[in-house]
């Protein structure tokens, strides 16, 4: 179940890989009262997928991925609330462009560093955006958040309804595209070289690979995906809060990804599903115990199950196969 692009891995989409989409469609019909939660989960899957590309595949440990999620969210929101652009496709496009430029500009300078310096720089960039969003109240709404966002019907046909039906389908469709692109990338020679960089940075340089350019490409693509996720959040909520840019948001996303499993594509699917459903059931009633539990879970995962839920499933499958023999 490990999806590592390489010159010997078949890129064929396995039967099991269609399961998330079947569930996604079925959930719409079976659980209509949970559509807004469903849309949020889909958004965070896309967001986690974008993180998986940099952390799981390229091996860039970042603490500031919320910068791109937040930038996408604010770009879409500001476009609508301040410039009156209500077209959802245009909002997505502007969010993508903003994040691509931001990813290129910041990636070009910070990806030359490694270790603590890189952690620090990613964190500092996200902190800057948070500070800007917090202080530039006339544009962003500051701590009160950005409201007054209008999203016109998609293609002029599908209105955003109160029950979140349209939003759900939009998120599912966009996630599908995002997944397809990411999967394609991972199985490409480019994806294989990212894994090479993750496994051994020095050796990739030594075999003549343009490592900085590869990392920058991955970082920028990831930034765009995260920005799309952010813009989708704006369109579904028609509100942007400062928390999209916070360090806690980056941290929470890392939790979701490691919970599902890093560097596996579908870890980014399972993690947010488990995390957000549990959060929906528990966090409101027991906020203290919720974050205590999350912290404890994270520590346990790191110490005992670093491959996340998918890794555990892999090991169980391997065990039963051994016993069957």
């Amino acid at each position: 179940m490990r999806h590592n692009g390489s010159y010997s891995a078949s890129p064929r989409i396995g039967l099991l890989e269609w399961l998330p989409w079947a569930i996604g469609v079925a959930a719409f019909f079976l659980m209509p009262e949970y559509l807004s939660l469903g849309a949020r989960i889909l958004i965070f899957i896309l967001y986690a997928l974008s993180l998986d590309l940099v952390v799981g595949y390229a091996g860039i440990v970042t603490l500031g991925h919320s910068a791109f999620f937040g930038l996408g969210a604010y770009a879409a929101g500001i476009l609508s609330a301040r410039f009156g652009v209500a077209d959802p496709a245009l909002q997505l496009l502007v969010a993508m462009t903003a994040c691509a430029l931001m990813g290129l500009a910041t990636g070009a300078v910070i990806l030359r560093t490694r270790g603590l310096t890189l952690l620090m720089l990613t964190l500092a960039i996200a902190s800057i955006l948070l500070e800007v969003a917090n202080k530039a109240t006339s544009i962003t709404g500051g701590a009160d958040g950005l409201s007054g966002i209008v999203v016109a019907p998609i293609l002029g046909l599908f209105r955003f309804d109160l029950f979140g039906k349209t939003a759900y389908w939009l998120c599912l469709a966009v996630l599908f595209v995002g997944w397809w692109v990411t999967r394609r990338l991972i199985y490409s020679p480019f994806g294989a070289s990212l894994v090479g960089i993750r496994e051994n940075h020095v050796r990739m340089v030594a075999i003549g690979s343009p490592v900085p350019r590869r990392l920058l490409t991955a970082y920028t693509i990831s930034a765009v995906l995260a920005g799309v996720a952010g813009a989708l959040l704006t369109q579904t909520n028609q509100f942007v809060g400062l928390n999209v840019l916070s360090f806690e948001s980056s941290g929470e996303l890392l939790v979701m990804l490691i919970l599902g499993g890093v560097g596996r594509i579908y870890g980014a699917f399972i993690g947010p599903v488990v995390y957000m459903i549990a959060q929906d059931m528990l966090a409101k009633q027991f906020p203290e115990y919720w974050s205590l539990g999350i912290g404890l879970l994270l520590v346990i995962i790191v110490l005992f199950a670093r491959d996340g839920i998918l890794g555990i499933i892999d090991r169980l499958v391997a065990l039963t196969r051994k016993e069957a023999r």
Partner: protein
Amino acid sequence: MTAVLQTRGLCKRFGALTVADNIDFTLEAGARHALIGPNGAGKTTFVNLLTGRLSPSAGTVVLGGEDVTRLSQQERIRRGLGRTFQINSLFRGLSVVDNVSLAVAERRGVSGRLFRPASQLSEVRDEAMELLRSLGMADDAQVVIANLAYGKQRLVEIAITLAMKPRVLLLDEPAAGVPSLETHRILDVLDALPAEIGILIIEHDMDLVFRFAKRITILVNGATLLEGTPEEIAADPRVREVYLGERHE
């Protein structure tokens, strides 16, 4: 004979410490040349100066007739300079054939493609398999490096470098850490390397050096002490002094 790799007056200083002292060195095309010297003689520094990992304080490095002193590691690699590492530097989570494929793909210039599945580039994998076969490693192609015996990992180290089709090959202690019973396998592989590649080997195992090298340079305190054929080196009293001197004092 033509020189494929040459240094003139190569110096490297770290503050007051001189680790490479005015080294003039020539590697002929198709050479089987060994660089030896006691610990701390500056052998690895010299290799790093050749590959461009370090830049010299003075002097020039000439590769295939072109001055590459100011060029980066990548640009030297592209001009045919390959190296192996003293300590294995492999992609530990990947299989042997994937390790070699990455290098083949870089050399063929196809590794940056974004959308076409990598496995469709069958020529990359075929070339990698062919190379492994020539090194007698075809059976281990699917084994993940982390599960591979150390001696075989040393061979993968060489295979990756060969995949780049170098004109000059720097082998930094290829037998380091390999049990002496297995060094013959390394030697077999070295003997079978294409004759046209100029090879510089840095090695402590004197048996291996004297069996493999046609020419030997001795480095002491960052400077060349002596260069000659294995017979000349073995006969020179200064060599004995360098290697055994400390023990006699």
